[in-house]
């Protein structure tokens, strides 16, 4: 992050020069309003913070210990670009058991540094200039900027209280154009806590197939489902081969850092 020093009289120490290099795409992204509130909360005493999306639990010690002993054993070099094979295999088993989706750990999975990196590289890999990417609204703050940085056009698709914060197929249809290429889903949803049931996803599947959409499904909160079980987007008939499933360890296992 660039820090802004408005009262810096010393020109050699000004960051204005670096700021002049900022690309048009980056300039087009509005600053996130969320930061201001974290800063406010940080400055005050006796504040109860319900602001940050992070578990209050500490990472279970045996997990920390595994990280420590990996260093002690000298495992500090690069792994395969797609991540350690034992991890991908274990993950394939976990996903099969939990969500009934089948992925080949050798050719169909990649370990990234969190969902944000995964999302960014997929969006950049599939977006051509001017492609429209349907993004559910409200949603996590970095989806739309990722699309903009990749040269795509984010199209917000409302998921409001009226539909229990689910994506309705009627509302989705209203936003489809010949330029629509990708649909970003995130259920259970940040910030609403909304979930999609199997029948909701099936209605979306018909549209995705008819209009040849790729679905990026961020399911990082999948384990945190309270009524019944999570339904994975890729487990819906006809969606496996047009869905990229993204998930992570930070929320469910309390290991954001």
């Amino acid at each position: 992050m660039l820090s802004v020093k408005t009262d810096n009289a010393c020109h050699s120490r000004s960051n204005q020069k670096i700021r002049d290099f900022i690309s048009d795409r980056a300039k087009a992204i509005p600053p996130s309003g969320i930061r201001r509130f974290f800063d406010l909360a940080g400055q005050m005493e006796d504040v109860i913070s319900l602001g940050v999306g992070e578990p209050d639990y500490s990472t279970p010690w045996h997990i920390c210990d595994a990280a420590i002993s990996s260093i002690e054993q000298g495992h500090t070099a690069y792994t395969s670009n797609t991540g350690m094979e034992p991890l991908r295999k274990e993950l394939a088993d976990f996903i099969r058991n939990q969500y009934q989706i089948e992925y080949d750990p050798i050719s169909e999975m990649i370990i990234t540094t969190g969902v944000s990196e995964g999302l960014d590289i997929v969006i950049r890999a599939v977006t051509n200039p001017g492609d429209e990417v349907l993004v559910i609204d409200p949603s996590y703050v970095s989806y739309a900027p990722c699309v903009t940085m990749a040269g795509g056009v984010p199209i917000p698709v409302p998921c409001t209280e009226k539909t229990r914060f689910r994506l309705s197929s009627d509302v989705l249809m209203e936003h489809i154009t010949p330029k629509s290429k990708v649909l970003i889903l995130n259920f259970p949803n940040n910030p609403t806590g909304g979930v999609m049931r199997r029948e909701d996803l099936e209605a979306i599947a018909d549209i995705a197939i008819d209009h040849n959409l790729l679905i990026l499904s961020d399911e990082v909160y999948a384990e945190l489902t309270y009524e019944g079980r999570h339904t994975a987007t890729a487990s819906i008939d006809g969606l496996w081969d047009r869905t990229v499933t993204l998930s992570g360890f930070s929320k469910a296992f309390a290991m954001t850092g």
Partner: protein
Amino acid sequence: MLSAPTMSQYAALEALKNGKEAMQEMVREYHLRRNLFVDGLNRIGLPCHTPEGAFYAFPSVKETGLTDFEFAERLITEAGVAVVPGNVFGNSGIGHVRCSYAVSRQELTEAIRRMDEFIRSLP
């Protein structure tokens, strides 16, 4: 990116192998917190749809007469509770605030008490 940090990959592998029980315990606790917090929000006059997943409640603040931004700003300065105005998540978030309930039940109870007091102080 060449590869995710190696030590984190070892940690992730351990989480998958032996972390499921601790995870389920956390999920049970989040479920209890959700019920406690969402009931509280509805009781004090912030209508909130019951979230079925994640650890966020997204109540409407429209009935307070404040925008979500004003509500969040005044709530933190006047009552010491930090929430995020819904408009930062897109136009459909306007009129709501996001509250994470991944904090202790004691803190949630106190947060509800402070929010109640704040709402009562409004004209």
